[in-house]
């Protein structure tokens, strides 16, 4: 059989959804490391302080870089300031969306909800849709036909990947869906994971967002300048590259259809600036194993369970050294993926070798 013939259907309403259910991969029991209740309780403890500090720094950096961009607008001197503003807006919002969506970043819930709404707008992810899609991503992580957040199929779509560097593919899809939702409808796929009771919220938010974007366009027309959009709307695109650079490293190139996050997720060491922007999402295996643990405690969790996990990647460059050749090979052999080795004394994956072999 040629590789082209084994291309799978990644939609949530196609034949792979049924196959996943038949294989027992839907809402399956996943590997969980053993850790004492006392230790887990200490790690799960919530604290407002780290997230308040980080959020104040984030907003202050947005205001300073945005103001300097405004001052120097019209000259090349504005470019570095908009580069910084764009990354803070279009990429740091990814991790704020994520952590506040889990409601673990702050101890105080209204703070999680407020930052979640702001970050969702910045990264163009509708709050209710993405809350539910991310719920599914945690239930059925990288299960084909179930997980709506698989970043690339096998073989990878290189054109889509190139467009995603500046969020063009996601942005086009987001605006198309905003129009659908503002009209009071969901797509067929969304209906598989957004419960009936939550759908009205989706329609309301879509209408508000479209009104905001219309106001930004009106401001651009009135001022005959794209400057208003440089602050609201466009930074999702020109500053979104780091979201994609980080996002690719989470799962891409690893096993599909395994019930063990150690085999389908990467933990990567990052420098402090990346970790500030990414809010420790680089401890991705740990996050999937214990979603209740806040971002600021993930480094400690990493230490607590690392004997049971494959070795972390030393840097994002190290991860890309693995990912790029895998993607190149998947172009001709979509069945190829990286098998992560568990440490010898680690607890085995659920289903053992069979679970890995299905991928």
């Amino acid at each position: 059989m040629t590789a082209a013939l084994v291309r799978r259907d990644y939609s949530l309403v196609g034949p792979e959804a049924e196959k996943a259910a038949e294989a027992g991969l839907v809402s399956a029991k996943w590997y969980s490391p053993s850790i004492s209740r006392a230790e887990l309780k200490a790690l799960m403890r919530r604290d407002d302080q780290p997230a308040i500090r980080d959020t104040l720094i984030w907003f202050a950096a947005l205001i300073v870089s945005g103001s300097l961009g405004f001052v120097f607008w019209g000259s090349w001197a504005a470019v570095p300031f908009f580069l910084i503003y764009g990354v803070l807006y279009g990429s740091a919002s990814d991790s704020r969306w994520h952590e506040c969506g889990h409601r673990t970043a702050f101890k105080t819930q209204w703070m999680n909800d407020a930052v979640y709404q702001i970050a969702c707008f910045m990264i163009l992810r509708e709050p209710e849709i993405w809350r539910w899609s991310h719920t599914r991503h945690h239930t059925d992580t990288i299960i084909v036909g179930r997980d709506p957040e698989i970043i690339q199929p096998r073989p990878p779509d290189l054109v889509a990947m190139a467009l995603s560097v500046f969020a063009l593919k996601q942005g086009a899809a987001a605006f198309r869906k905003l129009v659908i939702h503002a009209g009071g409808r969901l797509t067929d796929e969304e209906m598989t994971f957004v419960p009936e009771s939550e759908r009205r919220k989706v329609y309301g938010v879509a209408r508000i967002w479209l009104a905001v974007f219309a106001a930004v366009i009106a401001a651009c027309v009135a001022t005959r300048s794209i400057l208003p959009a440089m602050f609201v709307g466009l930074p999702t695109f020109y500053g979104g590259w780091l979201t994609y650079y980080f996002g690719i490293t989470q799962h891409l190139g690893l096993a599909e259809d395994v019930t063990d996050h150690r085999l389908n997720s990467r933990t990567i060491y990052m420098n402090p600036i990346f970790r500030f922007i990414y809010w420790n999402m680089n401890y991705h295996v740990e996050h999937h194993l214990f979603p209740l643990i806040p971002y600021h405690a993930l480094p400690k969790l990493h230490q607590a369970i690392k004997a049971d996990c494959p070795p972390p990647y030393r840097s994002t460059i190290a991860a890309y050294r693995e990912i790029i050749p895998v993607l190149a090979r998947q172009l001709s052999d979509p069945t190829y993926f990286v098998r992560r080795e568990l440490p010898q004394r680690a607890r085995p994956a659920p289903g053992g070798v069979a679970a890995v072999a299905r991928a």
Partner: protein
Amino acid sequence: MSETWIDAGAADRISPQDVAPFEHDGRQYAIYRTADGRYFATDGVCTHEYAELADGYVEGTIIECPMHNGRFDFTTGEAKGAPACVNLETFPVKVEGGRILLKVA
């Protein structure tokens, strides 16, 4: 149907502001102890998908589900945060002679 008080173990097996599992007659329960020493009990399994609440996180009178961080007020069973949308069943509980007693149907 008669209601019975079941011995659910020693009261001090649950530390303050925490939760522990209890199984009876094939059914799972979650028993909570608040920071000020009050005890409560709910169904042991989340109403969203399958997850055991005894693996979750207690903050005040809220239990957060370990799977998707759905939130419930365990004193009333009320669902307080998506993806938890359906309330939990609650059960009367009391402590006598250092033992937790749970009233089940």
